[in-house]
């Protein structure tokens, strides 16, 4: 028993699992739902307990272990083993997972609590309330597996597990076919990512095996990554012809494969399409899974594998560029959306892009920092949106809202805080994390075109501020555009809903100070104020850039200005001069339509991939090859041919006339004798 072993870790994921299992088994075998109080206790108790354990363990971790060897491991048993491949079922708590665990269990617990209020009035005959929380707990379990996994395999368990829970929860209201379709879409797109992830695992494992360390364990891989630094993969002729070079660096390839997985999970180009659709799920789900936790798994994975990415500049560049482009691209779509949750969804995609940008430029701690702050404010925003939706009786179209400020004051205030935070207004949390990312991008000399990246980031920051405030104004200010009937029933939500909002709002405000850049810290005389960065650094090995404080503050100022400019524009168009909007929209008509329709990427995918594949499968494979060629020609064809030989030809030799039989005998006999005497 070394100091690093810690059997408490297993309970962090297991508690939600147990809760989920209890609920689930009850659902299967019992005739009726558990008492609602029991459901609530079980469902909320588990994540809260996990959170408590996490806090205790993280405190122990950071206090009892030296900075350079801060990790706890909880090894249960060997999960999969064959030949020289071994994967333990083991959990790892190190600073990186510590931060994530706290975020997931913390924010998760809040959302569980919120969900009690949100799902309260869901009228279901099939015991939906309990089922919902079973799924939610299962999700928490999976997410914790993902985070705490000690090796790629356990991470993959969580990785897929969250995908399934997401699938189940998106399609929670399955009676609407669209919801089920959205869930399926999410899962399938995630699977495309998992395809890459799996290949990445294979590539890494075999490379390490070849180098003599067959492992998929993070720490072991990190320790031995040097062995692979110079490995290259020989590409097949066609690929090397396309790419222009004969072989690719192994780590780059492996990291790219893994990144494909991250793209799927974290909704990056080109696999982002599922996330907006995923808003079909209940709002707490959107908040928990599709904003605060699951979608950041990709970022977490990249940070977790930072030891490999740091040695794979090509992969890093790909990550950074994908992130930046996604951030910008999604932000533009966000400009024209009218569904309150869709706006938030695209903003999530966009913010995830920021995180990848950070990870790509090796600012891993900044990425995690943004993961954390984003979890606070985006969860807040979603929950706020949920509150609005509840208040509006499940109306989600912001063009039918307006003026909710007075009717829902708490929601209004907390939502506003969230909006300010995401827009990057100091000193709200979003400001610090975003600023750090942009700074890192600006300084990432190793990445080709890092200045362009920075510019894109700035542009996105502007757009973000704009569309978030557009959302805010459309929902909360001005006159209500809702129907009379709805208007009469608008009401503030209950305490189950509001308490989490308030807590999250608080963190959205102060969250930034966990990672207050050292430069700011010095202003207040605090040494190493970027505690998060220093906490994480031993694990993630972020790039350090030496820049003077003036530049740092200057860049911050630019960022802030850009954000404020966005706010100003939004205020102009959606608060002061709403009459201008239709004119502008019609002026850029086709472009607006294109953006509103999300650039019709879904349709494009449908046209290019889904339909052709379906047509080929149905027409060519199922009908042509299966029924036509193999069965028709090959199997039945042979059978029919044999039968036809008899029916069409041989049969007519059997004429029924004795003399024709004799004739056959004579001719056959003559041939027989002729053959016998052939040699004489």
């Amino acid at each position, binding site marked *: 028993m070394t100091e690093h072993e810690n059997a408490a870790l297993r309970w962090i994921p297991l508690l939600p699992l147990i809760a989920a299992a209890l609920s689930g088994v009850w659902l299967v075998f019992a005739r009726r739902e558990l008492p609602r109080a029991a459901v609530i206790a079980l469902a909320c108790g588990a994540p809260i307990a996990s959170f408590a354990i996490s806090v205790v363990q993280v405190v122990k971790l950071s206090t009892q272990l030296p900075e350079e060897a801060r990790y706890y491991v909880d090894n249960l048993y060997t999960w999969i083993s064959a030949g020289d491949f071994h994967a333990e079922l083991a959990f790892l708590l190190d600073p990186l997972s510590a931060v994530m665990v706290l975020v997931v269990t913390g924010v998760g617990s809040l959302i569980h609590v919120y969900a009690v209020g949100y799902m309260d009035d869901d009228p279901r005959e099939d015991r939906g309330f309990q089922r919902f929380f079973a799924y939610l707990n299962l999700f928490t379990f999976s997410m914790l597996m993902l985070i705490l996994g000690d090796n790629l395999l356990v991470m993959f368990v969580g990785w897929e597990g969250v995908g399934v829970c997401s699938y189940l929860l998106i399609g929670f209201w399955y009676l609407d076919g669209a919801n089920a379709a959205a869930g399926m879409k999410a899962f399938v797109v995630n699977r495309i990512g998992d395809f890459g992830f799996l290949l990445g695992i294979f590539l890494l494992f075999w490379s390490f095996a070849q180098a003599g360390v067959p492992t998929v364990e993070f720490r072991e891989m990190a320790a031995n990554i040097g062995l692979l630094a110079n490995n290259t993969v020989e590409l097949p002729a066609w690929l090397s012809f396309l790419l222009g070079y004969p072989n690719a660096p192994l780590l780059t390839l492996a990291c790219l494969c893994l990144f494909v997985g991250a793209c799927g999970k974290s909704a990056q180009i080109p696999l982002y399409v599922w996330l907006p659709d995923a808003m079909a799920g209940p709002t707490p789900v959107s908040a928990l899974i599709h904003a605060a936790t699951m979608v950041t798994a990709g970022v977490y994975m990249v940070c977790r594998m930072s030891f490999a990415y740091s040695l794979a500049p090509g992969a890093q560049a790909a990550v950074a560029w994908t992130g930046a482009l996604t951030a910008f691209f999604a932000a533009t779509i966000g400009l024209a959306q009218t569904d309150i949750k869709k706006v938030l969804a695209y903003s999530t995609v966009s913010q995830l892009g920021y995180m990848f940008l950070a990870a790509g430029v090796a600012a891993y701690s900044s990425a995690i920092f943004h993961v954390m702050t984003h979890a606070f404010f985006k969860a807040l925003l979603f929950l706020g949106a949920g509150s609005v939706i509840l208040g509006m009786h499940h109306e989600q179209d912001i063009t039918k809202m307006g003026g909710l400020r007075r009717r829902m004051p708490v929601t209004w205030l907390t939502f506003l805080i969230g909006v300010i935070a995401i827009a990057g207004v100091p000193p709200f949390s979003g400001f610090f994390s975003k600023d750090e990312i942009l700074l890192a991008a600006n300084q990432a000399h190793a990445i080709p075109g890092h200045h362009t990246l920075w510019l894109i980031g700035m542009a996105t920051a502007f757009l973000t501020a704009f569309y978030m405030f557009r959302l805010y104004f459309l929902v909360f200010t001005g006159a209500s555009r809702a129907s009379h009937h709805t208007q009469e029933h608008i009401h503030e939500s209950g305490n189950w809903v509001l308490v989490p909002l308030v807590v999250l709002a608080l963190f959205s405000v102060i969250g930034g100070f966990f990672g207050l850049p050292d430069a700011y810290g010095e202003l207040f005389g605090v040494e190493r104020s970027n505690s998060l960065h220093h906490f994480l650094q031993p694990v993630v090995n972020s790039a350090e850039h030496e820049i003077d404080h003036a530049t740092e503050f200057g860049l911050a100022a630019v960022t802030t200005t850009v954000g404020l400019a966005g706010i100003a524009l939004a205020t102009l168009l959606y608060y002061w001069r709403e009459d201008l909007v239709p004119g502008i929209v019609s002026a850029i008509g086709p472009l607006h339509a294109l953006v509103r329709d999300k650039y019709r990427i879904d349709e494009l995918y449908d046209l290019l991939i889904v339909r052709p594949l379906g047509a080929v499968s149905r027409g060519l494979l199922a009908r042509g090859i299966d029924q036509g060629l193999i069965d028709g020609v090959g199997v039945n064809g042979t059978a029919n041919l044999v039968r036809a030989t008899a029916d069409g030809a041989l049969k007519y030799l059997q004429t029924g006339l004795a003399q024709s*039989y004799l004739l056959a*005998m004579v001719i056959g006999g003559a041939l*027989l*004798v002729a*053959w016998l005497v052939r040699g004489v």
Partner: protein
Amino acid sequence: MIPQLDVAAVAPMIPVALGVLCLPLLEVALLRTPVLLGQRVSAARRGTYLATASVLFLSVSLLLTLNAFSQPPRVFNPENPMVRMDGVALFLMSIVLIGAMLSVLASSKYLEHIHSNWGEFYTLVLSSVTGMMFLVAASDLIMLFLALELMSIPVYALAGFRRASLRSNESAVKYFLIGSFASGILLYGSSLLYGATGSLELDEIATSFDPENALDLVGAGLVLIGLAFKISSVPFHQWAPDTYEGAPTTISAFMATAVKVAAFGALLRVVSVAFAPVSESVYGVLWVLAALSMTVGNVMALIQRNLKRMLAYSSISHAGYLLIGVIAGGADGTQAVLVYLLAYTFMTVGAFTVISVLTRDGEEHDRVDDFAGLSQTRPGLAAVMSICMFSLLGMPGTAGFIGKFLVFSAAVQSGLATGSSSLIWLVVIAVLNSAISLGYYLRVPATMYFHPPRENPQPAGNATFFEGLVLASCAAAVLLLGLLPQDALPGVSSLLQMADVNVLQLASDAAASFAP
């Protein structure tokens, strides 16, 4: 000069021949019972008595045959053997006797149903059996021809035994004309062989056979044609479907089994004794015949609607499989042929008997469609039929498989010994043909089990004791031979105080006793 004749050598034939003499007398006696006993014996009872009597004669013969196994091969006349009672002959005789017994037992009720319940039937069967027994033991062409005719002529008559039925007439006429024609060819071939080699004895033919002389070869060829006709090998097979279909069902069974077994015995003997000097050429001919028989038989059987006709084609194809064993030659090939024939007899008689049991009031229910839903109306019959069909198609666990296995095995062994691939090709052809054969064999159980019974179902009622006996023993034999070929004869061997005897052993010993 009176030669030393060993009458005991032909002891197995004597009871049957005696039966030929006695049965007409017995029948007359039965017909005259009103005079003798003052009570009339009904036609049905008479049939039963006669059948019982026939079976008695046959079984005495069988016992004598089995008994002869334990003795060294005997000949009737050392100077001029005529018959050679070696293991192969005895084994084949046993099969013939068994086949005949089963056919006779199945017949007594059936004859009534086709309104042809005449006692001559049994006389004819027994005389044919006499011929067969001599045929399989014949060691010269004189006895071979004579026995062949003694075997065939009664069967010609039996094919037409259902006098009132045009189909039966036609069947007999065709069989008779074509058969006589084939006998003529065989006879002429014998004559040419005689001329070429100076003898009609098989051993001596072999000694002075000149493979370079056309006359010898023509003679051999013509004899082969004659025998190929009897085993219904393509292209000398075309009579068989017509005859089997038209003949009374139990006679079809008799023809398909006993006649074929005896003919194969003659073929085996002629080919491996007389034609040994030209075995390569002869095997070449038989190779083609085998391939053709299997293929044509199976392909044609596929399109048959009439079960008897289908079984006829199936018997043609089985002749093809059997020829592989003949070609493989040697002790293993012979053993394979012997066991195959035994297996084939049980499964074929079983199948035909099922058809005959379903006959009522002169109407044969012999189309495959007539069997629809039989599993529900007559489950026992359906089960026996299925067992026979699965055995015919060579399903492991049945006798048919053991036969096929031994044949293939002999072929492979011979291929390995000679290093030639031609036998393997033949085996491959056989295997592909077995695949084709599934198409029609499986249709029968499918019809019986998967189709609902027809609106006018098969005749109800139970099989008679005799029929039940036949069915049960066929099914049991098929399964026993298939599962425990090694232990298939323990009862009989203990009866005969033979140690450690089983079918395979017996066949193998028999094959070994065969003249080289």
